[in-house]
């Protein structure tokens, strides 16, 4: 099948960039992922702990199909690296000899590293890289590298070869000094034309500096001849003033420029640099891409550059939250012990100061950075586990924004522990404490008194700032940024820029947390895919058939052991002989071969050319394993053996080859090889149709995103019309009317040939697995139908929670936010007749019965208040809140509302406002509350009381369970992982989006819908789902059908077949964790490669070696 392969460029290899790349690659595109940093992972590689687990867990985002990066066709755009990652064995000898020490950005500058270093200490596989900005190119590392992986001399300016041709030695010598010694280029010299031509014939050059007036052959003649030898050679003529005309003539025949002698270095060097830059350019990869995903993220606010540095950089022991994160880390400056920087004393009292560089107009941030509240809570919680229970954390904050899914509960759990104290307040500045390295800070407490306290350490919760890269990128791509530098998107989308084909993921369009970044990344990816798809680039069929390997399934194991030798000595030789003899005791080991330096190119060649005719399994023992990436496949191809039949074990190069650890590793490897059989490629057929449950904006957006890829969609809606909550919403906070957007979306859905809409319909039953589900759908007044589909998206939405609090239901003057919206929408609100409106936030939210923040209520209250104010400027509006949750760019509306004279009163849940309804001629509602600022009562006579009751889920438990998904404790869709896999259920093929996940705004709902569609397309876009290499199987003859394996499988990958007689494994869902194998008492269930026999062999091997 001749299908076009679409390709996409993803800029920024942080978490969002990686997510977007993986999504696009899994959909079958060729993806180029570019980043400035020498490693992937962005800021998250620096954060070891994430709430709610207070651990990392990033590995859970990795493709569920384990394995080989090249399968995803991700190509890195890479400036040539001076260290060959294929050769580097990570021994670190280069780093030991490197004389350059620079602050380590990875540890936020808290430690130092060498110029040749490991960018992320805990990467696997891990290879060194050279910081080219810091490297002095002294070359010390190059000779010590045991594998010749460092090619510094062939890099950069050294690789740029200049030929200086002049008959005057003084010119030659000074140019050699300027360009060679000072600037670091490789300079060669020729004293005459013929000598120059000889050199040009012998080796390539990039630039020739050519004198015109030379005895014998003159410059012009040299130029003519040189251009025949090396047509690409750039030539700069050097001329005396008298022969400028000749120089100009020379340019006509191909010289690029000339210099008039005598000249200063300042005249020459920029010209050479320009040629060098052009030369470097050609070294970059250039790709034509169908769409671009930008995910360049944000940077942390640097307090030292602000108007108010908060003591940062001047007062000891004031650190940023990112620095604190590194201080907590096991790979941080103090190896996971919490010590303060100045004197390394253990930290026992620390204060977090929130909103440093956020919500601060003085530092140009009329926005909330969104992440810092949770960040501080998490750091406080983790610090307590690192530093011990006597650690005292104080968080000084303005509003505690626990706005996201499960954030409120995490917050409550954290701040209710002893030792974590929350103080509402704001610290104005930080000064040193004379005679001490402690930090004293002063602030005004909520009750009004001035507090002064001394801490061991103060952490500044620094805000997010648009990346400096963003402005450049935006300008180049012709997209808009807002006043803060964030990329502007089209209305109702968080990821589409105004320019078609350019999408933004992650924090680029405004600060947000990990989960939302990941969602936006997936949304951007699916939108990029739509663009490419529309332009004719297709989703790709499975391209190459894997090489056919020898079938060895019926042969007894015959193992070739290849051992690598680093050094040649009599001792090593005798050790190797002893080891060989020992290994050969096992009749399965038919051959033991010793090779030199497998890590070098020669060694690798020798390995690939090893004769494997008489054997059917190969074990390679070397300093480092080759099980990662391309090398394993390379070996498989050259041996003609399935990769699972090739094992590679690490021999400790610091010990002799017969060291027990080495022998144990080899014996374990042999045991594994003896018991492994080539695994046939498992895959399951996919039904290329999606079922979307719920016809609100999320459901419709998901359906459109999928259908735009040529995959059919059945969209099931319970009510008689599409639209969900958007049917009663009037406009957004920025005044965009909702009806046209809704009508347009419904129109697209109706017209789309790939979408079948079923209104008045409900899913009444379902079963199946990723790739093939069956759902029974009941439609009012019609016979039930069964739909077969490969994935399901639950977009069942939510509704405004009902309430009877604050006299709701007893008076026309008490309404919910939705009722207010409806009155506005239906023109039933006489704003002129009213003098005052009170809004109460968090009615039944952030405490039982809805112990979560519904997120939309604060912006909604602002929206309504500003609308009312615009209608009737004299109207007094009072908003009673607990914490204003105006995260991200919504903060600006909060500022605007204050400016408009809307009054805000903070209340605590233990001191709620009191409401009474008046009769007769009185103003209908009286609201009494306590103003914490004045510490005094306030009485408001209100014509209208508006209650924000929050959102409750409409995801029926039975529906979730029918697809093997679960609901969280609040009734929302339980995602597989709150951060890394936010739109999918643990059970593969089941996705959630929109409010079904958690309360969210329209653009956020659309983003989740697109993200879910993108994730679903990774299943729906293929004909067969590939299975992971390591999966569990059932040996039916042994199986007793106790079903313990079915119960224990965390992925629901096991099921009893229709006849109830066999336990089956869905190989596409099985992740190979082996829990089933352990639950099974008689090894009827085993994981490929980890059978009991093989494990017993490994255990024996380990102990035999002792």
């Amino acid at each position: 099948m001749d299908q076009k392969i679409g390709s996409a460029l993803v800029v920024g290899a942080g978490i969002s960039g990686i997510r977007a790349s993986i999504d696009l690659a899994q959909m079958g595109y060729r993806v180029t992922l570019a980043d400035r940093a020498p490693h992937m992972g962005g800021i998250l590689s620096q954060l070891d702990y994430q709430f709610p687990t207070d651990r990392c867990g990033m590995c859970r985002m990795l493709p569920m199909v384990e394995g080989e990066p090249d399968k995803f066709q991700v190509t890195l755009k890479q400036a040539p690296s001076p260290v060959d990652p294929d050769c580097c064995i990570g021994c670190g000898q280069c780093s030991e000899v490197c004389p350059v020490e620079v602050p380590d950005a990875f540890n936020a500058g808290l430690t130092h590293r060498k110029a040749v270093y490991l960018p992320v200490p805990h990467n696997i596989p891990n290879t060194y890289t050279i910081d080219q900005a810091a490297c002095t190119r002294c070359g010390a590392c190059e000779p010590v590298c045991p594998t010749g992986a460092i090619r510094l001399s062939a890099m950069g300016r050294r690789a740029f070869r200049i030929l200086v041709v002049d008959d005057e030695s003084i010119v030659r010598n000074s140019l050699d000094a300027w360009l060679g010694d000072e600037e670091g280029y490789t300079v060669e010299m020729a004293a005459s034309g013929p000598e120059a031509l000889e050199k040009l014939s012998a080796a390539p050059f990039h630039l020739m500096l050519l004198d015109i007036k030379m005895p014998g052959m003159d410059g012009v003649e040299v130029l003519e001849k040189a251009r025949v030898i090396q047509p690409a050679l750039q030539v700069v003529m050097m001329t005396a003033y008298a022969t400028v005309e000749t120089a100009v003539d020379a340019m006509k025949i191909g010289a690029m420029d000339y210099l008039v002698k005598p000249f200063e270095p300042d005249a020459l060097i920029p010209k050479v640099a320009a040629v060098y830059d052009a030369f470097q350019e050609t070294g970059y990869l250039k790709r034509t891409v169908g769409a671009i995903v930008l995910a360049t993220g944000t940077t942390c606010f640097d307090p030292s550059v602000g108007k108010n540095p908060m003591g940062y950089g001047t007062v000891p022991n004031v650190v940023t939250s990112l620095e604190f994160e590194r201080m907590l880390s096991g790979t941080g400056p103090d190896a996971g012990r919490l010590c303060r920087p100045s004197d390394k004393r253990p930290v026992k009292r620390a204060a977090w100061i929130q909103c440093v560089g956020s919500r601060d107009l003085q530092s140009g941030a009329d926005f909330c950075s969104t992440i810092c509240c949770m960040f501080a809570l998490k750091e406080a919680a983790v610090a307590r586990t690192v530093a011990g229970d006597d650690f005292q954390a104080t968080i000084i904050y303005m509003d505690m924004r626990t706005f996201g899914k499960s954030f409120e509960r995490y917050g409550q759990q954290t701040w209710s522990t002893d030792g974590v104290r929350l103080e509402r307040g704001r610290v104005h500045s930080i000064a040193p404490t004379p005679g001490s390295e402690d930090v004293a800070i002063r602030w005004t407490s909520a009750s009004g008194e001035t507090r002064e306290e001394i801490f061991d350490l103060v952490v500044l919760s620094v805000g997010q700032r648009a990346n400096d890269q963003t402005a450049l990128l935006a300008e180049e791509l012709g997209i808009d940024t807002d006043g803060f530098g964030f990329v502007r998107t089209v209305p109702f989308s968080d990821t589409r820029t105004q320019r078609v084909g350019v999408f933004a993921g992650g924090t680029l369009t405004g600060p947000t947390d990990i989960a939302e970044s990941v969602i936006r990344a997936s949304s951007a990816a699916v939108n990029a895919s739509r663009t490419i798809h529309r332009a004719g680039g297709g989703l790709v069929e499975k391209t190459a058939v894997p090489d056919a390997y020898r079938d060895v399934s019926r042969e007894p194991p015959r193992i070739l052991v290849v051992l690598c030798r680093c050094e040649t000595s009599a001792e090593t030789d005798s050790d190797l002989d002893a080891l060989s003899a020992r290994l050969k005791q096992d009749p399965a080991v038919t051959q033991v071969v010793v090779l030199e330096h497998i890590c070098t190119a020669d060694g690798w060649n020798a390995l690939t050319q090893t004769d494997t005719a008489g054997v059917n399994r190969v074990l390679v023992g070397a300093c480092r394993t080759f099980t990662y990436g391309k090398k394993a496949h390379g070996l498989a191809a050259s041996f003609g053996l399935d990769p699972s039949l090739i094992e590679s074990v690490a021999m400790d190069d610091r010990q002799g080859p017969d060291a027990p650890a080495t022998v144990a590793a080899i014996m374990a490897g042999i045991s594994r090889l003896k018991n492994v059989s080539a695994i046939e490629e498992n895959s399951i057929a996919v039904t290329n149709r999606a079922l979307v449950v719920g016809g609100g904006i999320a459901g419709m957006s998901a359906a459109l995103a999928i259908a735009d890829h040529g995959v059919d969609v059945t969209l099931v809606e319970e009510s008689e019309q599409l639209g969900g909550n958007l049917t009663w919403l009037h406009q957004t906070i920025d005044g965009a009317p909702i009806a046209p957007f809704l009508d347009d979306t419904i129109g697209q859905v109706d017209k789309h040939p790939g979408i079948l809409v079923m209104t008045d319909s409900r899913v009444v039953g379902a079963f199946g697995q990723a790739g093939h589900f069956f759902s029974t759908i009941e439609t009012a007044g019609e016979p039930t139908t069964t739909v077969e589909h490969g994935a399901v998206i639950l977009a069942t939405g939510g509704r405004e929670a009902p309430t009877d609090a604050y006299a709701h239901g007893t008076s026309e003057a008490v309404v919910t936010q939705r009722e207010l919206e409806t009155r506005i929408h239906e023109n039933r609100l006489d704003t002129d007749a009213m003098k005052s409106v009170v809004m109460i936030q968090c009615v039944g939210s952030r405490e039982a019965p809805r112990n979560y923040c519904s997120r939309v209520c604060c912006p909604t209250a602002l929206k309504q208040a500003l609308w009312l104010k615009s209608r009737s400027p004299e109207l007094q509006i009072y908003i009673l809140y607990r914490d204003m949750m105006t995260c991200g760019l919504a903060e600006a509306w909060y500022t605007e509302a204050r400016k408009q004279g809307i009054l805000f009163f903070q209340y605590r849940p233990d001191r709620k406002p009191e409401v009474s309804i008046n009769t007769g001629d009185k103003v209908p509602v009286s609201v009494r509350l306590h103003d914490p600022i004045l510490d005094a009562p306030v009485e408001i006579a209100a014509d209208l009381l508006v209650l924000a009751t929050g959102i409750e889920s409409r995801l029926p438990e039975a529906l979730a369970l029918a697809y093997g998904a679960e609901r969280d404790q609040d009734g929302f869709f339980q995602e597989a992982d709150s951060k890394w896999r936010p739109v999918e259920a643990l059970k593969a093929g089941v996705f959630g989006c929109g409010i079904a996940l958690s309360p969210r705004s329209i653009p956020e709902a659309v983003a989740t819908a697109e993200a879910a569609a993108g994730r679903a397309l990774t299943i729906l876009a293929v004909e067969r789902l590939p299975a992971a290499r390591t999966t569990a199987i059932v040996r039916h003859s042994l199986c007793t059908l106790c079903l313990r394996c079915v119960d224990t499988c965390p992925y629901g990958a096991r099921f009893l077949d229709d006849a109830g007689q066999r336990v089956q494994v869905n190989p596409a869902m099985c992740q190979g964790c082996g829990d089933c194998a352990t639950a099974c008492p008689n090894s009827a269930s085993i994981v490929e490669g980890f059978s009991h026999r093989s494990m017993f062999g490994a255990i024996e091997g380990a102990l035999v070696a002792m």
Partner: protein
Amino acid sequence: MNPQSVTTLPTAEESSESLDPIRAMVSACIQCGTCTGSCPNALEMDLTPRKMWRLVILGRLSAVMESKTFILCSDCYTCTLRCPRGLPLTEAMEALKGIAFARKEARHRGSRLFYEKFMETVRRHGRIREMEFMTRYFIAMKSPVAPFRFAPLGLKLMGKGKVELGGGKSGDTPLGALFEKVADLERTPAATFRKEGHQ
């Protein structure tokens, strides 16, 4: 009027609209308290700046006027510098003084007269003449004890040669014209604030 007493909203207080320009200056306040924390005179104030701004926003003119908080503002601008909302707090303090003096608030009579007489001396001479200024102030205060309250400070300053006695050596440059122009402008205070653009 006690700030702790019940605040009734919408405000029923008469003439609270004179606060409106100042309310507009500080309406974006989020009551974070940074101003209070950074104010060097806060300890002397009967109301913390934060409370006072809250009263301003709530339109409680009389409670504000009863406070001496704004009188005690020494125009150091620290709060303005530190305010995360970037509000012109020092100028708002000044504006409150203006209202208090315009209303001839009895509580602030001393401060008002001090300022008036100071400026009058400046108007007459184009500079400050300490002896004349203090004399005018004492007369205006109509308080027999006032001179004695200032005596220790006065003597101390005289000892350091900081007070010019008698007619003085330098010539006067009366500023009557300038003062008239300012008075003109001050008759339309709202316009002034808008022009300076503190929204």
